[in-house]
């Protein structure tokens, strides 16, 4: 086959294809208006006349009411047990503690010197009162981003936990949780409040 013949051949096919494509397009457009017009008249909506040319119909699907409630949940939702749900609410509340909080510098998780006597007293208590388990909560101030602060709070709790282990507290009695910046002790928005909120808090279980 010569080069010219090949090109002519291609041009003819391209032409045919374009006619075909336009033909299809026209047919589809008309079809979508028509079907849509009939679809748009659900039995609940009466007296909807046929959509005029150029007006396309669309039916919106209702969305399930997505919110859970405490009492009733949508079918299929994994129910938290009553005890779990209560634990979830309880997580937002400030727990009383036998110990003072220890505090941290901004964006830091190092144990400061002023925290060491407090950690020593926590360690002494746990050694004397075997069977007591301790939850170490890590907290941050409101500055910075909440995801980063969640991880930073975890580091603070972990620093305190490791320090207690280094003082001889059995690792098995200690657990940690971070609340990031979600649970400020002081609701203020100044350095005094922030300093109080950058803390590890100890809750006996």
């Amino acid at each position, binding site marked *: *086959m010569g080069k010219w013949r090949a090109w002519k*051949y*291609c041009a003819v096919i*391209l032409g045919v*294809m*374009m006619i075909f*494509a336009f033909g*299809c397009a026209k047919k589809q457009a008309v079809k979508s208006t028509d079907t849509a017009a009939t679809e*748009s*008249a659900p039995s609940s*909506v009466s007296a*909807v006349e046929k959509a*005029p040319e150029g*007006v*396309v*119909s*669309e*039916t*919106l*699907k209702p*969305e*399930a*009411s*997505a*919110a*859970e409630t405490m009492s009733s*949940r*949508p*079918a*299929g*939702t994994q129910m938290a047990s009553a005890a*779990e*749900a209560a*634990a*979830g*609410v*309880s*997580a*937002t509340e400030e727990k009383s503690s036998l110990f003072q909080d220890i505090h941290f510098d901004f*964006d830091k998780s190092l144990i400061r010197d002023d925290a060491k006597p407090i950690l020593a007293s926590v360690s002494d208590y746990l050694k004397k009162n075997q069977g007591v388990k301790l939850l170490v909560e890590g907290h941050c101030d*409101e*500055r*910075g981003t*909440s*995801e*980063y602060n*969640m*991880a*930073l*709070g*975890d*580091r603070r*709790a*972990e620093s305190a936990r490791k320090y207690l282990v280094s003082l001889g507290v059995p690792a098995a009695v200690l657990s*940690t*949780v971070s*609340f990031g910046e*979600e*649970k400020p002790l002081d609701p203020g*928005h100044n350095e005094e409040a922030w300093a109080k909120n950058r803390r590890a808090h100890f809750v006996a279980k």
Partner: protein
Amino acid sequence: MRRLWFVILFAAGVVLFPAAGSAILYIDINSPGGRRMPIALPSFITVAGDPALAADIPKVLAADLGMTALFEVIPSEAYLEKVLPAHFAGKPLSFPDWKLIGAEAVVIGRVEARGDQVTVEMRLYDSTLGKLMAGRRYSGPARHYRLIGHKFANEVLYAFTGVRGIFDTEIAFSARPGKGRSKEVYVVGLDGQDPRPVTNNRSFNLFPRWSPDGNTLAYTSFRTGVPVVYLRNLRDGKERALVKFGNTKSPGCFSQGGESLYVSVSVNGNSDIYRVRVSDGAVEKAVEGWGIEVSPSLSPDGKKIAFVSNRSGSPQVYVRDLAASSGERRISHAGGYSSSPSWSPVGDRIAFTSQSAGNFSLYTVNADGSDQRLLASGDGDCTDPSYSPDGRYVVYSFQKKGYSELRIISADGRSGKRLYSGFSDAGSPAWSPRR
């Protein structure tokens, strides 16, 4: 040989065809600051039902089109012609009357509400040509009337720019509903009206992230007392726990096809980024380091990931090529604490927050760290940016001494608006994919 050509040409025909029907472009969406198209939005006609809808839907359209900075809505006092039911039954509008008041486009609408069902017909005319540019008739539950307005706003934008709108998308966020400390997840439309609760368990519900199909939200909840990442299907309300291992966990983003969730999880005090398969919870490590690694955001092609690490001593934004075994590039150079990257769904821009002179401001930067620009700042903290699915807007949280609101700004920083300000500590906004 012949068969091969036929296949190639057929493919070409299919690819070329969509362009064949494209309209004249009236507005170049990429030249903001240009002339705004004057548009008239007369009150809709009520055929049956509550007339409030007939006034409310044009307001939704006005707010949407106003957000683009491409349209100017002509005040209704100027309108000369009263829209009649007959205009929906063949009677043409008096286009010279609309031209006279400067309206180059007119939207008319009729509302028919029966019970809790509503049918809304809207038509967009070019008043210079007297031509119907778009016509739609929507049927559905009356409570979705705003969605109907948003959908037609998309049609108006498309008719004049050739670009699909995002007005029917939504923003998920977390906020404190009352005076207590609990945080719940909400979803709100772009008009900021009536956020609907997704959670209501009075615990901490944080970091909502959309699946690519927009049907599922991943989020962290303390509802059982410890943090777990759940997947909530917004269509049927079904939910399941996906990530239970480790301590702290924050979902960052889904993979392109929604098969996996990138999530930061801390194990023994070290937070790294993991890829968790949605189908069975299988876990792979995606980014690790000795420091805190959080806040993953995937590139549009799924090949790179932006994240935050404090490996340099303070939090900074890095980009990593997921296929390469090494090579992480720091891209934040704003100075201090930099965090929460959001990769634009189109192109190679990354938005993030950075602290300078006390407050947090938003910046955008190329994925290679070049061309960093200020996007938003104020007398408070601008954090947690999230790009719209068309990459043209960014939603973010603004907080100042306990006051909080969600704001939207155009990606070029030229125009912005308040989205919502009803709750305290509103944060972690996430823009849904296209509907």
